[in-house]
């Protein structure tokens, strides 16, 4: 029943990279489109640099469950140094999407992870962030890449949310720079 | 004394009557009685500061006596007095003496 059209996404990052914010912005973009959402973090101690996970759940109907996401439809990895610490593809659906912030190709990532299932996407989100925001905060470009990979929300919807949400918090200039980062990521994400 | 039932007591053990401790005569606890020698007293009020029952009587800037209705005979006044102006005597002896004089 409620499981129809349920999309579950897991975000892997390090404290300070904005994975939690990314999980929330994507959720709000879905809300803009009249859908239901949950976004929640899974912290240990909240420390800069510590590995963290965050989750986004998006559905056409009210989301009842509050259990953790174990079989995500998509996984976003904000930092490839996490590969050596954990299996980022754990539980990823066979037809799911793995989206990685890297300058390498999807084939390289597939090889590095010995992955023979799922779709793999790569984008140099850190570089895009440095170009557009002046700092390596790869979370917003990674939202663009996740949207490209999953189509879970529309490109226009996520851009509108970025402009509104970040506009009130960071000001118009930074919001525009973030929107630009999302657009670039959307265009530059490669599939393989 | 007839005590109130649970439905009749004010909730939260709030006491609504101010100064109700006046009815509690702690003087009945006393086994030793302070005897104040006004000849020695310098009216420094150290006893007045220390007395836990506020029993040191004062009038016109002078110590005048000790309120035996509330004095429980703890002897702090006697111990603290720099002039040794307060002696503690056995309450029973003091009462007997009072009776003999009376």
């Amino acid at each position, binding site marked *: *029943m*409620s*499981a129809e059209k349920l999309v579950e996404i897991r975000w892997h990052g390090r404290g300070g990279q904005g994975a939690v914010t990314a*999980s*929330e912005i994507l*959720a*709000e973009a879905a*809300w803009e489109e009249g859908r*239901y*959402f*949950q*976004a*929640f*973090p899974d*912290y240990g101690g*909240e420390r800069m640099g510590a590995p963290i996970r965050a989750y986004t759940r998006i559905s056409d109907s009210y*989301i*009842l*469950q*509050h*259990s*953790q996401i*174990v079989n995500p439809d998509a996984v976003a990895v904000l930092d490839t140094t996490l590969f050596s610490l954990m299996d980022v593809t754990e539980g990823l659906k066979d037809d799911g999407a793995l989206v990685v912030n890297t300058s390498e190709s999807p084939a390289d990532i597939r090889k590095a992870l010995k992955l023979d299932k799922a779709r793999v996407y790569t984008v140099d989100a850190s570089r895009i962030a440095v170009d557009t925001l002046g700092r390596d905060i790869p979370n917003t470009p990674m939202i663009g890449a996740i949207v490209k990979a999953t189509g879970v929300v529309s490109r226009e919807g996520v851009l509108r949310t970025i402009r509104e949400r970040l506009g009130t918090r960071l000001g118009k200039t930074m919001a525009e720079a973030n929107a630009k980062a999302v657009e670039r990521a959307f265009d530059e994400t490669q599939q393989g | 004394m007839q*005590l*109130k*039932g*649970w*439905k009749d*007591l004010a*909730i*939260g*053990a*709030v*006491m*609504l009557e*101010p100064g*109700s401790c006046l009815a509690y005569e702690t003087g009945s606890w006393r086994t030793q009685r302070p005897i104040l020698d006004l000849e020695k007293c310098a009216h420094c009020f150290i006893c007045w500061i220390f007395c836990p029952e506020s029993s040191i009587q004062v009038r016109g800037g002078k110590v005048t006596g000790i309120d035996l209705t509330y004095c429980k005979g703890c002897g702090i006044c006697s111990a603290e007095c720099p002039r040794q102006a307060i002696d503690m005597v056995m309450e029973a002896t003091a009462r007997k003496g009072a009776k003999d004089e009376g």
Partner: protein
Amino acid sequence: MRVKVKGKPVALRGDEAVAEAMRQINPDVVAAYPITPQTEIVQTFGQFVANGQVDTEFVAVESEHASMSGCIGAAASGARAQTATSGPGLALMWEMLWVASGMRLPIVMHVVNRALSAPINITCDHNDSMGARDCGWVQLYAGTMQEAYDNAIQAVRIAEHPEVMLPVMSCMDGFILGHTFEPIEILPDETVKEFIGTYKPKHSLLDVEHPVTYGSVVFHECYYEYKRQQIAAMEKAADVVLQVGQEFGDLTGRYYGLIEGYELEDADFAIVAIGSIGGTIKKVINDLRGQGQKVGLLRLRCFRPFPAQEVAQALGNKRAVAVLDRSLSFGAQAHQLQMEVAYALLTHGPIPKMVNYVYGIGGRDLLPSEIEGVYRDLMEVAETGIVPPGVRYLSVRQ
């Protein structure tokens, strides 16, 4: 009936939603100390204070013992006082919890449930508030973030009802609700203000025309009588929780009772639980009902006072019942919720077959598949007529 108020849909984290309710309540005094996972309540509310959005006297205390003491002093002075805490913070308050209820002060405390040390754990279970279940506080547990916000508002009315005058804990699951970002409906400020009304204390330490004494010594002559009054107030609180929940529903369309039943009436197999797990259980029920299984949920919204009659009435006709505890009573025959449910059924009967489960200790997740397993267990119990002895510990590694 008056026209329902339309709320404003907003996206917030659970802690922020509670802070928002506190802003709208605008308490006279908030004395609080930050602790994970409640920190965001105090932090967000602190910003409201700094921005001048509330009139509250905010006291940044040095510990939770002090925060409850501060609330007690403020409430005895006739102020509307609130605080918030979690896990070890609640444990440190324990002495003062009894003082608050014993003095009959209508303090509202927002509890974000967290496991107790040791070992140190910041995530959710219910041992903090369950450990305080005998302290004379009304306890509400939210199933959703919306309910956490709604309960925070209703708690004020319940606490301050002249025939109740008891402190209230409004609990929600740490992280699972407290840190989850979700859409909820926030009522207009004016609506909340009108709903909670003005607190008119019967006595105030600041009223020099009518001096009173709080906190006197009472020995065996009268102490028992004051405790008997608290028992009566707690019984009355059950009516008031219902009455306030009804009134809140008339206003917002969201009605609240002492318990919530989901697909319960015609169910053969029921799970009894507290807190956010209710949502996950509902999802499982939807799936199993789709397969023709008659399964249902009874979620306790109010644990103190315990709604024994309602629970017994809702469960008496079931073939088998599972009671899910998210707290532990070491050495007991069963855990806290199970004991209450069992005695409710014993006194109000009939008594279905019951199995006690423990789940979610120290933040351990409980998956839909495991909940489905509980229903399967119940079906087997009903089939064989055999209730396995002892408590079942879900999702613990062997």
